[in-house]
């Protein structure tokens, strides 16, 4: 990978590792067989979680879900390069990084159900995870707003000499949003330890990337801001890892930010409310093929190294599915947050007007408990 990659012309090739024939049959630099298997298993777990989310949504047990099928390599490749002190400012599609960093399924599932144990206390729609322990920062639904927060956090990390890298993520569509530009401006001027990932899955709901941006590739958006940029095959977990490792090392060495465009594909719908056949027909089918699907590609690579067999495959899927089933069924049984919690966390201390509103509600609830939703209990 060239560190002068902001100079890459429009027709910039995608940086790849696994499809490079010289690599087949040999371990990539800096990665052990154990690393590769861990990455493969990480991707399998994300996919198993997504399959489960879809089932829960279809059977009406959760209201909404977001999947990242087809984008597993983006999360695992980066996750493998992160250190404990690093931070993640993501949007709704990066929960796989939390899983890869070791969050138990239950922690994610508690959020899907918005139950009592959800870190967000059932306040956000599903797919707006937060996890302070893992430096995974709570996100808004408003596209792009978190990017400039990440730049600020990176400036703070630099000031505090924490040796932390701040990562932040945005979709191809999100690169049009205001705050992307503010983030890039700050990144270019202050050169903080920030790595900005554009997860180019080629659609922003129905809008194809060609109608989102007039430039040929999105990594070019680094040039104008003075932020070195590269374009990477986002379905190649090793390439994602390599690019991240290099960018993180630069950031830790005080050499400033990097923009990384990850070229990938959103195989599923935008969310459970979306019907992608309306705008792209059955195009997505081909992206689960052996040469594109990040999981299939890694599997083939493991095979070429003699690290894979059917028994291993069966075992890791079974483990992942068990983990996912156990974690989600536990969360499903937990009650919803106490309705009193509605008034918590608005301010550090409850203001009088809000306390009065709460007390009125307590009084009403004791008079007319809401036993059956939708029914008039009087």
């Amino acid at each position, binding site marked *: 990978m060239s560190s002068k990659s902001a100079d890459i012309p429009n027709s910039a090739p995608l940086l790849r590792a696994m499809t490079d024939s010289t690599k087949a049959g040999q371990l990539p630099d800096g990665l052990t067989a154990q690393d590769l298997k861990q990455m493969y298993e990480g991707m399998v777990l994300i996919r198993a979680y997504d399959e489960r989310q879809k089932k829960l949504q279809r059977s009406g047990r959760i209201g909404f879900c977001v999947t990242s099928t087809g984008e597993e390599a983006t999360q695992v490749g980066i996750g493998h390069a992160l250190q404990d002190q690093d931070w993640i400012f993501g949007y709704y599609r990066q929960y796989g990084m939390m899983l890869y960093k070791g969050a138990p399924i239950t922690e994610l599932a508690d959020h899907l159900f918005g139950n009592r144990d959800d870190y967000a206390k059932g306040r956000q*729609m599903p797919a707006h995870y937060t996890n302070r322990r893992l430096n995974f920062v709570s996100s808004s639904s*408003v596209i792009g707003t978190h990017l400039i927060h990440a730049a600020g956090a990176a400036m703070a990390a630099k000031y505090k000499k924490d040796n932390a890298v701040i990562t932040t993520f945005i979709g191809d569509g999100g690169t049009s949003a205001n705050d992307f530009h503010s983030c890039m401006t700050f990144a270019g001027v202050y050169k903080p330890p920030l790595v900005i990932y554009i997860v180019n899955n080629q659609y922003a*709901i129905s809008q194809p990337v060609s109608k*989102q941006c007039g430039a040929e590739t999105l990594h070019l958006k680094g040039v104008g801001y003075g932020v070195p940029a590269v374009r990477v095959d986002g379905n190649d977990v090793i390439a994602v890892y390599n690019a991240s490792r290099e960018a993180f090392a630069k950031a830790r060495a005080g050499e400033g930010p990097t923009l990384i465009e990850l070229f990938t594909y959103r195989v599923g719908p935008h969310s459970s409310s979306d019907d992608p056949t309306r705008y792209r027909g059955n195009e997505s089918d081909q992206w689960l093929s052996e040469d594109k699907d990040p999981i299939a590609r890694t599997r083939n690579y493991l095979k070429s190294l003699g690290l894979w067999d059917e028994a291993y495959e069966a075992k890791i899927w079974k483990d992942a599915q068990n983990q996912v089933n156990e974690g989600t069924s536990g969360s499903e049984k937990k009650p919803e947050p106490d309705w009193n919690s509605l008034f918590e966390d608005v301010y550090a201390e409850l203001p009088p007007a809000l306390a009065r509103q709460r007390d009125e509600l307590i009084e009403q609830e004791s008079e007319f408990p809401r036993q059956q939703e939708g029914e008039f209990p*009087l």
Partner: protein
Amino acid sequence: MAQMTLLQAINDALKTEMRRDNRVVVFGEDVGVNEGVFRATEGLTKEFGEERAFSTPLTETGIVGAAIGMAVYGLKPVPEIQFADYIYPAFDQVVSELAKFRYRSGGEYSCPVVIRTPYGGGIRGGLYHSQSPEAYFTHTPGLKVVIPSTPEDAKGLLASAIRGEDPVIFLEPKKIYRSVKGEVPEGEFTVPIGPARVVQEGSDLSIFCYGAMVEPCRLAAEKALEKEGIRCEIIDLRTLYPVDEEAILASVRKTGRALIVYEAPKTSGYGAEIAALIAERAVEYLEAPIKRIGGFDTPFPYTLEKIYVPDAIRIFLGIKDVMAFE
């Protein structure tokens, strides 16, 4: 007349106005091929082509800012903001630019942009797909703010907004997009911006409401009559700015009691404006303190949405409360 949902009525208004006036253009995120995430723009690209109905890049500032430029140049843009919660990235363009163009140019330029956007709770949308931002816009001179609650009004008010010469924030109560159905006149049809609608007449208490709150108010009033013999008058404001002051005052003068219901956070919500109007101009007719029922002063929740949004029970208790004052 045809039976339509609120959403179909909005679609019908867009089609009718686009046929009538080729200056009308519709755009926003996913409004083209996908026909809007709620399908409000169904069939528009097919009938009018990509030049007049198209999807934009993901930038609300861009959407509103470009609409302003088009309007200044003579078109009638009707941009869609996918959820009202996403109007904030464009807030500066709305309040600093759109609202002020006519005034700051001494009337040389106007900005007849109609921003349509689904708003409000009731669909399990959590923090960022449920907000009711009307008060920000009624607080901004230069904007009209319109909120329909029936399919007929949705069609007629939207048509009037498009035909007008001022910027309009057209807030669509998405909770009732599909659940509310009604007769809608076919073809060209308008409902004037300004006048309120009397949902039902009554002599004991006036309820002022709009959008998705009209239905629970009706239900609560029905129960109040059945259980307590209280006769409520219900006024659907329809237009929040300019609001129908005379309709509000006339109703309070008749009943002597006022309850205002809205789903935005109570403090500094639109209800405060109605309460102040009544206090300024009809206080001598009041037989009880004015009461506001709103959402709580918290961000909009996900799991506990059913407690946050005023429902018929809370409204019923509010009616009893106002009536209990001697």
